[in-house]
């Protein structure tokens, strides 16, 4: 054991033996989240690919439905989700500056935008149902699988955001203890990235 280790307090020495303390722990948490997101990529890719294969084989049907529904609502939803990603990073920025109130304010805005996104998605589903696009229709089966799974991720993200706000209120985060917010941020931005591809592949192409 090195001289430096002999001088360390017992707790620090123990942390060093186990791999370099809280920084290493934070990096491990982030890597775990990235691996989880990698597995999520595969799930969403399968569903989006299934839709694309269907869309290529049924171009006229897809074109007809797009013309009936339009892209106004879903474009608005895209801006809402991009804005929520911005509020998320601004919250993290405030935390890194030691401003817990700022963190709570921005993450609350993120949760609110997530709820708004889901509400608008429900309005869109009602419009689609009105023209016969249901879960049992051929188009509906391919359309609802990726978009509903994404909606479920948004709801999970909103619940997580509210949890982060609650934890912030209990002073569980600080300028040097940001990992809880960072990991949530990775999840939330991933939901945004998935939507970017769903928006293009399912609504625009």
């Amino acid at each position, binding site marked *: 054991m090195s001289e430096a280790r002999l001088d360390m307090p017992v707790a620090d020495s123990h942390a060093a033996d186990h791999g370099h303390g809280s920084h290493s722990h934070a990096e491990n948490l982030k890597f775990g989240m990235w691996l989880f997101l990698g597995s999520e990529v595969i799930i969403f890719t399968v569903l989006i690919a299934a839709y694309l*294969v269907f869309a290529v084989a049924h171009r006229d049907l897809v074109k007809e439905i797009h013309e009936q529904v339009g892209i106004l609502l879903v474009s608005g939803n895209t801006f809402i989700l991009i804005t929520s990603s911005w509020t998320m990073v601004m919250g993290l920025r405030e935390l890194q500056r030691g401003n817990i109130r700022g963190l709570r304010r921005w993450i609350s805005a993120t949760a609110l935008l997530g709820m708004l996104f889901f509400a608008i998605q429900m309005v869109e589903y009602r419009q689609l149902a009105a023209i016969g696009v249901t879960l049992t229709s051929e188009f509906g089966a391919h359309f609802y699988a990726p978009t509903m799974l994404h909606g479920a991720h948004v709801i999970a993200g909103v619940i997580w955001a509210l949890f982060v706000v609650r934890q912030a209120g209990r002073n569980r985060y600080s300028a040097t203890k940001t990992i809880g917010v960072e990991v949530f941020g990775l999840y939330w931005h991933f939901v945004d990235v998935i939507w970017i591809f769903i928006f293009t592949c399912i609504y625009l192409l």
Partner: protein
Amino acid sequence: MNDATLITPVPEAAAEVLPAVPAEAAAPAHAEPHGEYLFGRPMPIAAYTVIYVILAVTSLIEVFFAETIPFDSWVRIPVLAGLSTVKAVLVMAYYMHLKDDSKIFAVAIILPICVGIIATLFLISVPATGY
């Protein structure tokens, strides 16, 4: 190992008289993600906000393009796919800090994306009647 690393921890009494480390200095490397610099240029507002504006404008261009270019035009797919890729890369590089974090994080996400893209292109290329 140099002498500096061999210094014993500061006794508690001494630590009390030392000035507190400012929050910004104590925060992780990407605390101020890119200072207020972006693409090597100083920014008058938060770099995150600049990225947000780029994302919003790119989305507007996408919607405008999708609404104006005919549904069957061949340019739709490469242009829209390119714009959405730019948006996704910006979010992952700057908002998810992939630009500054360990490269192994990038590998963990890029590998499944590549597998997914190859699998999707293969599935689309298979004729409906099969080979």
